[in-house]
């Protein structure tokens, strides 16, 4: 059942990226282009997501267990450390260069676009280098 839920949630998430146009790097770069010609749309993607996920998370977090699993598994890391800041700086720079973050990058594989394919391969190499060096 967990696998079906995963697939289903992936599909809903992927459709959300298409409907909101977050899958389009030009749209993302328009959002990051705050000081020139700014497209505020992506702020609404975040607002839309948070108004659903925040109340539902807090409504269910104190239940005994999730519906199809033996226990909840949530990050307990509270440390504000160098890794968090440096990693976020690197991520922000890459996001601003290409206009893709991990979700839209993977979803855009569906479009068989060579550029996003190159981005995704490079991203996985980046994951691996970070894993090996830390």
């Amino acid at each position, binding site marked *: 059942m*967990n696998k*079906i*839920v*995963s*697939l*289903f*949630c*992936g*599909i*809903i*998430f*992927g*459709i959300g*990226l298409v*409907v*909101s146009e977050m899958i*389009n*790097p030009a749209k993302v770069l*328009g959002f990051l*282009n*705050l000081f*020139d010609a700014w*497209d505020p*749309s*992506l702020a609404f993607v975040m*607002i*839309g997501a948070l*108004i*659903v*996920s925040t109340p539902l*998370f807090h409504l269910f977090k104190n239940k005994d267990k999730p519906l*199809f*699993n033996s226990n909840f598994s949530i990050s307990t*890391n*509270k440390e504000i450390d160098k890794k968090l*800041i440096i*990693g*976020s700086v*690197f*991520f*922000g*720079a*890459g*996001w601003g*260069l*290409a*206009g*893709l973050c*991990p*979700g839209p990058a*993977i979803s855009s594989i*569906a*479009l068989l676009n060579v550029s996003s394919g*190159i*981005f995704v391969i*490079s991203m996985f190499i*980046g*994951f*691996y*280098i970070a894993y090996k060096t830390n």
Partner: protein
Amino acid sequence: MNIINFTPITALTGGLLIGLSVALFFILNGRMIGVSGMASNFLISKENRIENLFFLVGLILGPSIYTFFLGQEIQITISNSLFLLIGGGALVGFGTRLSSGCTSGHGISGISRFSLRSIIATITFMIVGILTVLITNIL
């Protein structure tokens, strides 16, 4: 600052779907979605590997299902500079693995939990993203 191409309704609708996906995954499977974590752990860790794979496959099926039912082609505009694609991809992969989260993991799941760590990460990558675009515009 001029405001252009503003599409609040579709942005909000897409956001609601993403939020629904995050909430359902938590209520049913007990984990918070973070795409960089699920993708990099799929590569690196045996834990939840199949579950992570199914989510990633779903992410790829999403656009195809959208096109199939709505008959609408998905148009994207992306750079064809190898430098930007390879450099950007490597920075995104390295950075999100190092900080344990991306736009979804920190920006949505983490902020939903009111995690200070995620709020700081989100503010940081937003500011750096904006500065990066500002600098590339000047160059």
